[in-house]
């Protein structure tokens, strides 16, 4: 389990972070996300749930260094974030694989870009390929290495996309509704694949999702975000025992947590409706 002793620095540390998308919005005090305080231990799996348009994607951009906060401090892995964080890998709802590359070459793409792999890519290509093949095998894509993305089903493409996010062994994996476009059965299958990858490698995960069951099944901690302004309203530790099996999603403990979280979101939506009227 992650080290929770007070002396250990947090892996992700947001200190009162505010972001306005441009100077004009900043001047009008309109923020996409507000007053975010977030402390994540090393190796922790967190999920962020909330209605669409609540700033979840904005939060992702902050966590990867693609955007700088307007106010506040972000430290990741002990370092202040000043630019894109190469220790992270990302996957989105759309697998966005390159159709002219085979599955294997798609997974290898990050190694052609990120240092130190980049400069060694030619020399160590066969070693990297072996690593990619092993990773593809671990998500059940054995035998599809030389296939093109359009020859794979949606679920397979998404698995390849997750492999691409993990090939450079990032310390942090950011997933933005990665299973949103898949059918329920494929989705549950991929939950288990993600659970197993995480159990084995213990990278940090930030999972953004609409799906409360998904967040409760996978995460150590679930945060509920409110809409405009985007704030973290509720923090909920999920103390279900690990390893978790799909069966757990049918237990009363699980359902209670999901129900409780649903209640928070329902309350928020009602508030929103009143304001809108």
């Amino acid at each position, binding site marked *: 389990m992650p080290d929770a002793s007070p002396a250990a620095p947090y892996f992700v540390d947001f200190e009162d972070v505010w972001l306005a998308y441009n100077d004009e919005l900043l001047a009008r005090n309109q923020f996409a996300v507000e007053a975010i305080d977030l402390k994540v231990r090393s190796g922790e799996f967190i999920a962020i749930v909330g209605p669409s348009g609540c700033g979840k994607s904005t939060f992702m*951009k902050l966590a*990867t*260094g*693609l955007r700088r906060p307007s106010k506040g401090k972000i430290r990741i892995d002990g370092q202040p974030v000043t630019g*894109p*964080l*190469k220790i*992270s*890998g*990302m*996957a*989105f709802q*759309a697998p*966005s694989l*390159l*159709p*002219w590359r085979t599955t294997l070459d798609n997974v290898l*793409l*990050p190694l*052609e*870009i*990120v*240092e130190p792999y980049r400069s060694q890519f030619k020399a160590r290509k066969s070693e990297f390929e072996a690593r990619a093949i092993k990773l593809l095998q671990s998500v059940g894509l054995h035998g599809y290495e030389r296939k*093109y993305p*359009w*020859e794979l089903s949606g679920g397979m493409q998404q698995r390849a996309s997750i492999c*691409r*996010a993990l090939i*450079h062994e990032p310390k942090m994996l950011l997933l933005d509704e990665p299973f949103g476009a898949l059918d329920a059965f494929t989705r549950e299958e991929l939950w288990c694949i993600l659970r197993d990858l995480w159990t084995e490698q213990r990278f940090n995960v930030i999972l953004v999702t609409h799906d409360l069951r998904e967040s409760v099944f996978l995460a150590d901690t679930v945060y509920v975000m409110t809409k405009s302004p985007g704030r973290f309203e509720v923090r909920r530790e999920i103390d279900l025992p690990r390893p978790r099996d799909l069966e757990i999603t049918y237990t009363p403990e699980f359902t209670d947590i999901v129900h409780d979280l649903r209640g928070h979101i329902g309350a928020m939506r009602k508030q929103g409706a009143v304001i809108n009227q």
Partner: protein
Amino acid sequence: MNKKQLERWSPLILMTAIVFIWQAICSIFNVSEFIFPSPARIWEQTLEYKGVIAQHAWRTFWVTMAGFGIAIVVGVLLGFLIGSSRLAYAAVYPLMTAFNALPKAAFVPILVVWFGIGIGPAILTAFLISFFPIMVNIATGLATLEPELEDVLRVLGAKRWDVLVKVGLPRSMPYFYGSLKVAITLAFVGTTVSEMTAANEGIGYLLISAGSSLQMGLAFSGLLVVGIMAMAMYELFSYIEKHTTAWAHRGSQNH
């Protein structure tokens, strides 16, 4: 003959039908060969002048290819520039649109003053008329990257250049080959138009001299030859397109 075969042979069938009707009209109404030559007459004159036609056709062909070659280089470079930089796009695109609206034949007299009668104006006219679609297509391919994919790469520390080379350029290849098919036919138009007033050789020149000596059959042969050359090059690029960017045409093969 099943439906698929019919579809494949339909262009040939249509062309044969047109030739027959054309021949029939000329024979039945006894149209003068000096006004509107029959297909038989055109064929007869094509054979009679085949040496001359071949010589002029060769000239038109290589001049067109030279102009087209320049068009590819310039079109790709400009397309790359305006597709990869918003500022360049904003600055260049309106000017290019205005330029594209100008009739390229109007440049021929100016080019003659600069380069004299001969290959200069013909190559440049072919170039001027054909680089625009290439440029626009490369730029479009580069400018329509998925933002998520760009984030995936940028977070890894990819520079703009990496994104362009790894993703932008391969992505714009189908657009590029598509534009080549259009551009090559335009290039033939440019060369022929230019040769009509500013050359002593080439199909354009042949058309004018055949017309002025009332060799209508020969004039039609000239048109026929340009048409065949343009069609052949179109098919060539179409073939290359299908075999280099198969991933973009997958819809027809499966699913």
